[in-house]
């Protein structure tokens, strides 16, 4: 486990799950997908290897955003939609912190949409856990920017008339450098993505297809359900062909300028025709196409879709300060006060 990011100080003792358990009662509904996300975070934080005091969890408002209270780290439960802006300030002020953000589809894609796209565009080195349950849960069941069109909710009694966002498409439109999608019912996929997000220098978005058992139950079960997942989910692994199906007999191929599903052994298709996943490719073209795939024509793609290397905002801030310190003749405030035109009376 070697890390690219050496900015954050490492722990000199082996940490465990108990180091991150908070003494607060977890107040999510029984059966809520958020419990599994909490379990994944408690499992992955000790493995990342940073000092426990260097973790900081920031959130906005909503069910997802109670997260900081349930993990024993530094943290701020912020205001609605603004977690990305608060996280940006924390990370710029102290790049030695490992900053994690817990947010939802309403928090980050509706009220906080502006901060969400701009933190991604700047590539501030924070890790965003986006709990996508396609509904406003804490306010009890209104449609969100990811609710499928036509869905009946409390504020859309005749069905929504809005086109939903696809999170991955939005992330890549904002020049995102890291995007992963995971289901809340597979802790290994979640922890793998979280681990890779920690390793990635830059803004990492993990879209977690989370189930809201009360207001949008089974919203994702046509994809992540046990009975359909072999056909409806494609789990990516870097360097490996993009296969799915019960016996991995199907795969994704590039035909002209678009992706297609092909079956190995049919129409002369062999394993060599199947696209091999390159999550580190700087060109987001294939990544974007993968993020948009959805049933019924395609499986939905899971795992780390994109993880491209670009300079981070916080590193560039540090470099500019370092350069200015080396070259400027204004080294303290007395220098500043006496700079330029001054005269003695």
């Amino acid at each position, binding site marked *: 486990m070697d890390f690219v990011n050496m900015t954050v100080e490492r722990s000199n003792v082996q940490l465990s799950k108990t180091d991150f358990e908070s003494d607060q009662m977890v107040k999510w509904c029984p059966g809520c997908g958020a419990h599994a996300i909490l379990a994944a975070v408690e499992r992955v934080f000790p493995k990342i290897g940073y000092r426990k005091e260097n973790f900081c969890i920031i959130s906005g408002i909503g069910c997802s955003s109670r997260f900081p209270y349930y993990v024993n780290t530094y943290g*701020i439960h912020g205001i609605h939609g603004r977690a990305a802006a608060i996280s940006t300030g924390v990370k710029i002020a102290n790049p030695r912190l490992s900053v994690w953000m817990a947010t939802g589809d309403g928090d980050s894609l509706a009220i906080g949409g502006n901060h969400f796209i701009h933190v991604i565009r700047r590539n501030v080195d924070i890790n965003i856990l986006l709990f996508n349950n396609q509904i406003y849960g804490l306010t009890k069941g209104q449609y969100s920017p990811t609710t499928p069109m036509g869905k009946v909710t409390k504020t859309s009694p005749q069905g929504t008339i809005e086109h939903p966002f696809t999170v991955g498409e939005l992330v890549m439109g904002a020049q995102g450098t890291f995007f992963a999608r995971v289901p809340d019912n597979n802790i290994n996929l979640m922890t793998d993505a979280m681990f890779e997000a920690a390793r990635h220098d830059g803004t990492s978005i993990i879209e977690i297809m989370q189930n809201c058992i009360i207001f949008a139950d089974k919203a994702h079960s046509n994809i992540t359900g046990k009975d359909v997942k072999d056909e409806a989910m494609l789990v990516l692994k870097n360097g490996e062909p993009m296969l799915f199906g019960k016996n991995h007999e199907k795969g994704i191929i590039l035909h002209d300028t678009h992706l297609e599903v092909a079956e190995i052994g049919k129409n002369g298709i062999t394993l060599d025709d199947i696209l091999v996943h390159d999550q580190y490719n700087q060109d987001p073209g294939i990544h974007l196409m993968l993020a948009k795939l959805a049933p019924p024509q395609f499986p939905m793609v899971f795992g780390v879709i994109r993880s491209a290397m670009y300079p981070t905002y916080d590193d560039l801030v540090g470099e500019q300060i370092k350069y200015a310190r080396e070259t400027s003749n204004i080294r303290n405030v007395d220098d500043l006060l006496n700079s330029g035109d001054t005269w003695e009376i």
Partner: protein
Amino acid sequence: MAKKKRPVVEREDVVVKFVGDSGDGMQLIGNMFSDVAALIGNDLATFPDFPAEIRAPQNTVAGVSGFQVHMGSSKIFTTGDLVDVLVAMNPASLKANLKWAKKGATILTDTDAFEEKAIEKAGYKQDPLLDNTLAGYNLIKAPLTTLTKESLKELGVDNKTAERSKNMFALGILYFIFNRDLKPSFHYFEQKFKKKPELIQTNKIVLQAGYNYAETIEAIESVIQVAPATMTKGRYRNITGNIATAWGLLAASEKSGRPLFLGSYPITPATDILIELAKYKSLGAKVFQAEDEIAGICSAIGASYAGSLACTSTSGPGLSLKCEAIGLAVMTELPLVIVNVQRGGPSTGLPTKSEQSDLYQALFGRNGECPVIVIAASTAENCFYYAYEAAKLSLEHMTPVILLTDGYLGFGSTLFRIPKMADMPPINPPIAKPNDPEYKPYKRDPETLARQWAIPGTEGLRHRIGGLEKEDIIGTVSTDPLNHQKMVDYRAAKVEKVADFIPDQVIDGSPEGELLAVSWGGTYGAVHSAVKKLQNEGKSISHAHFHHIMPLPKNTEKVLKGFKKIVVCELNSGQFVNYLRMKFPMPNFYQFNKVQGLPFMINELTEKFNQLLEEK
């Protein structure tokens, strides 16, 4: 025309205003003229007056850009009500500014610019230089454009460059009128145009030509001398309020050892603070230009949690957008400096004009019981000290502070006696020690009621804060009714306790009498000058100018009770007076208000004061 020696007229103070089209270079010659005045030891105050548009249509009143200088041989408190010398480069600028000229003022115009079309565009029916519009003024009519071109003939400068240099010709004439040395300006050209040596020569020739021309014309009968002012010894510089604010924050950062973070979004008239701080990365300042006002303050809250001296700068509409986040900073009890450079409102209002109408917003503009410290600077120069104090109070008392300045202070400049950092008061934020077994997120210092600042990364202090109400001392989420009452009371008492740490309110004049003039913020100079004038006439009037608004100084009630009448003068409809009425219900409050995007004039204040003194 023969040169002749002019008699010298001594003046205690003079107001000069340069006006012209947006592209005529009025700001430049205004600044150069002020710098020379400062160099010979005059005290001075300046104010640029420009339209909100970058280049409004040429030759229209909307496109007039101006720069006013008030210089004197004694302390200067305002940029001056009426103008002694007006330089008007075109008909529109004359039209817009003649009302500010004193009777008998000297007016210099470029006759070349007074052609039919421009006269019509300015809204004049006929040439104001030819009818009796300017009767009673001392008019200097000079074909500045033609003369400038002539002076540059030998140099072979192209017509466009020559035309653009006419502002220097006008400045040359002014230098003659004020008996100024040209050398400092020559030196300035040499510095400014190092990379374009041809411009050094051009500007020198035109400036000298203007000076020589003035020496030969009949219209200038005497030259004006403004003697150096007697000022406290020291090293001086010129400073605008916005730059002083930025520097005050840098000074507080250095003194407190807390790195500076500014999260801001550009907005007139506060943008200069953002621009200024962006220059000083060498001092470790981290300046984040956010995607909007809300991100500006929220990033600052994040930076504050992480241990920075965190600030956000804005103007009225921006403060509206930040209100919810200020509530978060109040609830999380984090230090945060919010600078509001007030402008005319509501809504977009008058972006480039000054007003004091955000006081209610600063005091009350949030949901819930949400007190913050509010302080206000009163001169361009003391923006430095009040920005420093805002940071000190915020860091030491663990609470947001709103610093109110205004467009008039922010854009205006005064002389600034340069302080030494060693003389600035210490700043000691209550930072929690690593592994302190006693640490609790909402445990309070009994003297200040401030909680401790446990900075992420510190060993043994992991904790969560947030916008939900927290349990006293331990800081976990709580909806307990009595706990909420207690925390509301603590947050209010913490801000009220700041009164123990700020100076008493000062009265300028006798502590008892007929009339107390009360003011706050950028109106100090005008109110002070008006009060002084009446005091010199022997009238029973004193002045109390407030810098600390929330909390008020402890002796405020005593100060107010010493007078039969109190008149509160504000550039709003009466926000401070109503605040005082609420705090000290007394029947003798009067108010004087103006909401025109313009500063107070001294004579309108004296008129009001006299009226109140005469009425029984």
